[in-house]
């Protein structure tokens, strides 16, 4: 549905599109100067950068992925030491780290695709608290709980940006139309590239947490040490 609306709106955008870059070129070329500035010849369209916090939130989202990627990497390392020795947990965290790293680069590329500039300092308006130091020295259930929280934070942030992006859809017939095009484009990108994968991840991690919880509580916790071993072996196979 969004893809359809996007196509329709994009077609309609031509009506609003002025020949700004062309005007820049003709104006600059008619002057006796060797410099060409052409400020309107950029990749920005559909109001990207003028649509609320969208551009800055996308930067912050890339930075969040980068941060999570290295946090997951440390968790993966911790579960690979000779005392913890949980190869399945190591593999799980390594996969999460690799994925968030790839998504960091993809997000940076997407920001550039839209004519934006990546800012590595940028934080979301949702990040009001000073950053906490990440702790990886946790036992198995705690670390899964933390991974679940992290994946939820990534998913919720995607929803937040999605909501910001589609906020103006009620103004389809007025001047908000350009903002809406930009927003729908980002909304579609987030749906396809992030939200679906994250939903599955959140579900998987919630399932693992639920399994581990049962091992902890069932049979007065008698099964825990063997259960953790078997669960780790299981993770080695399914991740």
């Amino acid at each position, binding site marked *: 549905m969004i893809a359809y609306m996007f196509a329709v709106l994009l077609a309609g955008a031509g009506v609003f599109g002025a020949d700004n870059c062309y005007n820049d070129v003709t104006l600059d070329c008619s002057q006796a100067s060797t410099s060409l500035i052409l400020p309107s010849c*950029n*990749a*920005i369209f559909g109001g990207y950068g003028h649509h609320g916090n969208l551009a800055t939130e996308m930067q912050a989202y890339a*930075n969040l992925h*980068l*941060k999570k990627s*290295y946090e997951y*990497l*440390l968790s993966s*390392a*911790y579960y*690979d*030491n*000779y*005392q*913890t020795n949980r190869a399945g947990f190591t593999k799980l965290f390594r996969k999460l780290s690799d994925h968030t*790293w790839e998504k*960091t*680069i993809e997000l*940076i*590329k997407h*920001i*550039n*695709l839209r*004519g934006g*500039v*990546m*800012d*590595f*300092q940028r934080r979301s308006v949702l990040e009001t608290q000073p950053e*906490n*130091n*990440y*702790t*990886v*020295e*946790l*036992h*198995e*259930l*705690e670390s899964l709980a933390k991974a679940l929280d992290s994946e939820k934070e990534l998913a919720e942030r995607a929803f937040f940006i999605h909501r910001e992006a589609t906020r103006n859809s009620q103004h389809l017939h007025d001047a908000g139309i350009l903002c809406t095009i930009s927003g729908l484009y980002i909304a579609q990108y987030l749906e396809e590239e992030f939200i679906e994968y994250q939903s599955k991840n959140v579900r998987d991690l919630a399932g693992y947490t639920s399994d581990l919880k049962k091992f*902890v*509580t069932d049979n*007065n*916790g*008698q099964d*825990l*040490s063997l259960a*953790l071993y078997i669960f780790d072996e299981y993770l080695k196979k399914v991740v």
Partner: protein
Amino acid sequence: MAGEPALRARRSDSCILGPPQDAQPHRRRLLPRCGSQPLQCYAANSHLVIEMKFFRYLGSHVNPVNIPKEWVTIHRTCRDSMRRQIQMEVSASLKYLAMGAHFSRDGINRPGFAKLFFDAASEEREHALKLIEYLLMRGELVTNVSSLIQIRAPDKKAWENGVEALEHALKMEHQVTESIRQVIKACEDDPEYNDYHLVDYLTGEFLEEQYKGQRDLAGKASTLKKMLEKHSALGEFIFDKKLLGMDV
């Protein structure tokens, strides 16, 4: 690695990790263990009592293991320099990310350079991973794992042109090489323990890769500089497409 400072979890976490320095020995005995890890949980605040109920389930069924540690032989100065090297590789990965981001901008439009630097960023991350894996093989990273890596936004955000970026990358790689040499020195010159294997690993694998990488960057910078001499705009354009593997 006894004597290293206990790691403190965030306030919101349900337990404080590591041997609590201020807990009384008799008190510690009464407290349940967290999972299978040799970590100690105790009620730091009264409001955590509810969470303690959960830990009661754990009881003392999972005993922390006590494995002989004689085989863990990396000495402190060597280990510390390895840890610094890991941080350095991570910082290099972030600098390369910034370079990749710069060259993908619409106003810069050098996809070949962007690809080169994004790939370099992933490569630096892989280096950090390899060093981490080496430490793990030698029995390290049992504690103080959280403090291993800090993420800071790279300072430099823009480059004048492709040559400047290549020369900057070359300088960065040289710094990394020198830093690896310092790690080798620290691990070889320890009066009590010459860490032959680690030194061999760094010399054979890491230095080899560094020297090859530096040669590659230096060659690219030279070729590009020659191409720019009389035809700067066209030279950089063609060189960029070559980096993409495209014939123009």
